């Protein structure tokens, strides 16, 4: 049991040091921002023209 715990902890650390999950979250944020602004102006367009 103790051995298994040790193993999983090491594994997490290795993953963490080369992980790009923050990058993934950041590019999703950029994409989300683009979509929200675009849809906002799109509805303004539908409303006016």
């Amino acid at each position: 049991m103790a051995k298994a715990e040790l193993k999983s902890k090491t594994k997490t650390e290795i993953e963490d040091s080369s992980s790009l999950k923050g990058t993934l979250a950041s590019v999703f944020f950029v994409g989300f921002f683009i979509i929200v602004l675009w849809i906002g102006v799109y509805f303004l367009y539908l409303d006016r023209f």
Partner: protein
Amino acid sequence: MIKSPLKSKVDPRDGKLAMAHLYVAFIALLVGGLAGLLQVLVRSGKFQLPAGIGYYQILTVHGVVLGLVLTTFFIMGFQLSVVSKTAGTFTDKQRTVGWIGFWIMTIGTIAAAVMILLNKASVLYTFYAPLQAHFIFYLGLTLVVVGSWTVGAAIIMKYAEWRRANPGQQSPLLTFMALVNTLMWIVATIGVAATVLIQLLPWSLGWVDTVNVAVSRTLFWYFGHPLVYFWLLPAYMVWYAIIPKIIGGKIFSDSLARMSFILFLLFSIPVGFHHQLLEPGIDAAWKFLQVVLTFAVVIPSLMTAFSLFASFETFGRSKGAKGLFGWLKKLPWGDARFTVPFIGMVAFIPAGAGGIVNASHQMNQVIHNTIWVTGHFHLTVATAVVLTFFGAAFWLVPHLTGRKLTKKMNKLALIQGSLWAIGMTFMSGAMHAAGLLGAPRRSAFSDYGGSAQAAEWIPYQIAQAVGGSILFIAIILMLYIFINLAFFAPKGEQEFPVGEALHPEEKAPMVFENWKLWLGITVLLILFAYTIPFIDLIQNAPPGSKGFKLW
């Protein structure tokens, strides 16, 4: 293992040439910044220009001096520096070519500036016909373009020399990037050179009576959109290849950086119609095609965003950062060389998103010719690009003048960047909002006969004046820092940061250096996007227009 050819210091002779460009750039910042301050004050409705100076005259000063002079001179100085640093010192012949280019550009700038200041050329930044300026204005701008080609020739000669000396090897990343930007600039400026030499000069000299307005606007925007990428790519050079070194990290991928620059070369140019979406005389199908190509040029920008985040996260995690965003805390926020360009990067998120709205064909009707567009390019060029240039100046100027960025100047630089961020949030934010409410761009203060809609814009115009005034303080601070770094900072060695790739063993494919291929595709795309529309515009042209001087 091949030894890096990197020199520790840019040769002082090359440094002098680069600094000559930077002096002109920062003089332009003062003149253009002052004109910008006057503009926002006039538009607040609380201030009138003295001595009969016209609003459209200072608008022209602001646009031409900042959009064309500051940017072109800074970029040429910066690119000469990075090429000298990464591909080796220029030969005497190459440097002489660079100096000739510098003087042609400077003479052209002075000629154009004098005509604007004499109020003979208040044709706004885009010098749209049928507004007609004095012929010396057009001649001056032609010299600026020809001079920039000449400086570009020095860069091309250096690159060719490097390739001959290092057969079969990929060129240094920053030299490669400077070359791509130079090639893109040469292909793009053919458009503005054509409209000026074939149309505007003969017309302003009175040799011909009329001008084909639609053709001149189309040639202008053939040049006008790649122009914004010509501003942006040097900022991307700093983001891709220099910032990683400043933070102590690595370039995420050398190949990705090269590929994104090649994509910019291909897709920056055949997209000018997205500036003309509401213009008659161009078939909607061709506009749509160029809208699609515009969306293609979004891709390398998104690649850049990914690469930067990855570079930052990899660095943060190597320093033991945990969690989703722990790496952000590891970045050197106290270092203005990083933080000021970082503010620029953040500004590029709303800037790019706004650009996607602008280019979305029918949606362009919501924002066309409103001050939203002005707000948009004050985020792109006047924040993302300019703050990156300032961030580069903080190490480049002392490096070239043999001085050091002191702690005190670094602190002032951080204040400068923060003031810029605050001022621009007010000014650009208010411009975006007022634009959505219909406020026009390129127009002096007016209450439009007491119209209720125009009254809605006034509070936003006051906010623009507040933001613009804060920005002017930031400009003064920047000039103080520049003068300090150029003339008064303590002598010493300031590092010229050049990043290394995370995986240097991964070589970019040599096809990236095949210029016949890339220029060939560039030309094909341009011919595809523009040939038939130009035939239409010329064959089915309405009678030409005589010149107007409305100021």
